[in-house]
């Protein structure tokens, strides 16, 4: 079942001196339970795509269809935890905003905190947590509103390399065990191959779909292990070529 569908979506930004076509005639969809990655050259409008999906901006033409409600959870590059709230109050932020801070939802969040090792830290402030734990807290905050679709905007890029690999495994495991549908935007080819069921390759600006690639590494459970698969480097080369325009 489809969760998201983009039909001929275009977006033009206007400024004083010029108009910029950020996205042009974009078509792709995301099915329930799927993990889809979007990769593209830097500055190609990847983040614009997420803003369109989360309805923060409207498309100039075309249609963004969210099936089964428009409840999306947005996870940004930096964790954006509020320093003046403890972890518990941070992860409840979305529920507060949507006025859904019921006892039932509070219990749901409590469960997430317990399941993913942040329960003992619920009264701690973000500054007291490591980068990996902060990112996990940010993920739980995103999951708290029980979204149908998770949008991940380069959620690991602010972390150093070693932490990034660990947090990547961690986030992937949580998303899978919560059976969430996810759409990840990244410029990191290896990250896309190791995480995604499907990879949407975008062209340079104006972004449009260049290719859709399936890594077929699902038999390996952990993203970190997938990086060791013999297939991995072949796929990396292929995607690298796609990105740099050497294939038709």
């Amino acid at each position, binding site marked *: 079942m489809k969760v998201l569908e983009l039909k001929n979506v275009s977006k033009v930004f206007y400024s004083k001196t010029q108009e910029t076509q950020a996205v042009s005639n974009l078509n792709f969809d995301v099915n329930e339970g799927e993990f889809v990655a979007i990769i593209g050259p830097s500055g190609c409008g990847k983040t614009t795509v997420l803003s369109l999906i989360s309805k923060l901006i409207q498309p100039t033409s075309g249609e963004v269809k969210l099936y089964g409600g428009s409840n999306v959870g947005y996870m940004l590059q930096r964790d954006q935890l509020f320093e003046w709230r403890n972890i518990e109050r941070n992860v409840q932020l979305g529920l507060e905003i949507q006025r859904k801070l019921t006892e039932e939802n509070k219990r749901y969040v409590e469960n997430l905190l317990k399941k993913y090792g942040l329960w003992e830290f619920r009264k701690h*402030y973000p500054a007291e947590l490591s980068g990996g734990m902060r990112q996990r807290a940010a993920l739980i905050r995103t999951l708290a509103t029980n979204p149908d679709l998770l949008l991940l905007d380069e959620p690991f890029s602010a972390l150093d390399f070693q932490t990034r690999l660990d947090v990547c495994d961690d986030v992937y495991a949580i998303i899978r065990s919560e059976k969430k549908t996810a759409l990840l935007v990244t410029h990191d080819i290896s990250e896309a191959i190791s995480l995604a069921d499907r990879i949407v390759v975008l062209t340079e600006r104006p972004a449009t779909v260049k290719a859709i690639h399936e890594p077929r590494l699902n038999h390996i459970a952990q993203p970190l292990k997938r990086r060791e698969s013999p297939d991995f480097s072949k796929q990396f080369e292929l995607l690298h070529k796609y990105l740099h325009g050497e294939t038709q």
Partner: protein
Amino acid sequence: MKNNFTKEHLLYLRGQRVHKILVHTARIGVLVLLLGLWELAAQLNWIDSFITSCPSRIWKKFIELVAAGTLWHHMGVSTYETLAGFAIGTVLGYCIAVVLWWNVFFKETFEPYLVVLNSLPKIALGPIIIIWAGTGKASIITMAVLISVVITAITILNGFVATDKEKALLLRSMGANRFQIFTKLVAPANVPTLMATLKINVGMAWIGSIMGEYLVSKEGLGYLLVYGSQVFQLDLVMTCTVVLCALAGLMYGAVALLEKIVVKRF
């Protein structure tokens, strides 16, 4: 809680403590030295203490004023005017900042006016204030408000505008409206800005109230200062100045304490 520090650590801590004690001693030393020199110069007639006054005469005057009860009255009046100006100026400035943050059109419309008002020496408005608000406490408080309100509005508005855009984006993606963005993000994120503004406003409010008293008053420390200089009683002028220093320092200390309590997390 007892800590088991290593010898080197203890040595380091002692060094820090010694440094702190030295600084405090030096601070007090400077004051004692200056006062002593002043007193000595007056006693040995190097300077004319009729014009310069001296610590012992200031102390005598202080006791005299306290005994007569007049000092408390004047201190009370000035403090009341300053606190009123401080409170009204801060609240009003904050409200102006909120309105201008809320509505971009208002912000763009009124920003140049704020800039001009900020550069205007508010004392120039003295005559107008006297005519409009009379010669009582009202016009003195108005002066204190005028001096603090514009800088408050500008500083706080800058803080509001500089609030992390990514965090605002996160809230909007959760479906937050502008009111929620303000209460959940912009207001708490700018508590440190508010505290910094309060510190500035202590000084601003005192300038306003003393200036106001120079212009119109029949009571207050500003009045006493002007009166002292007119009758050429330098002891009175100096005593008032010292008392003013103490009051302003006390108020600043109170705000700094408040900041320490509030800003822990921000």
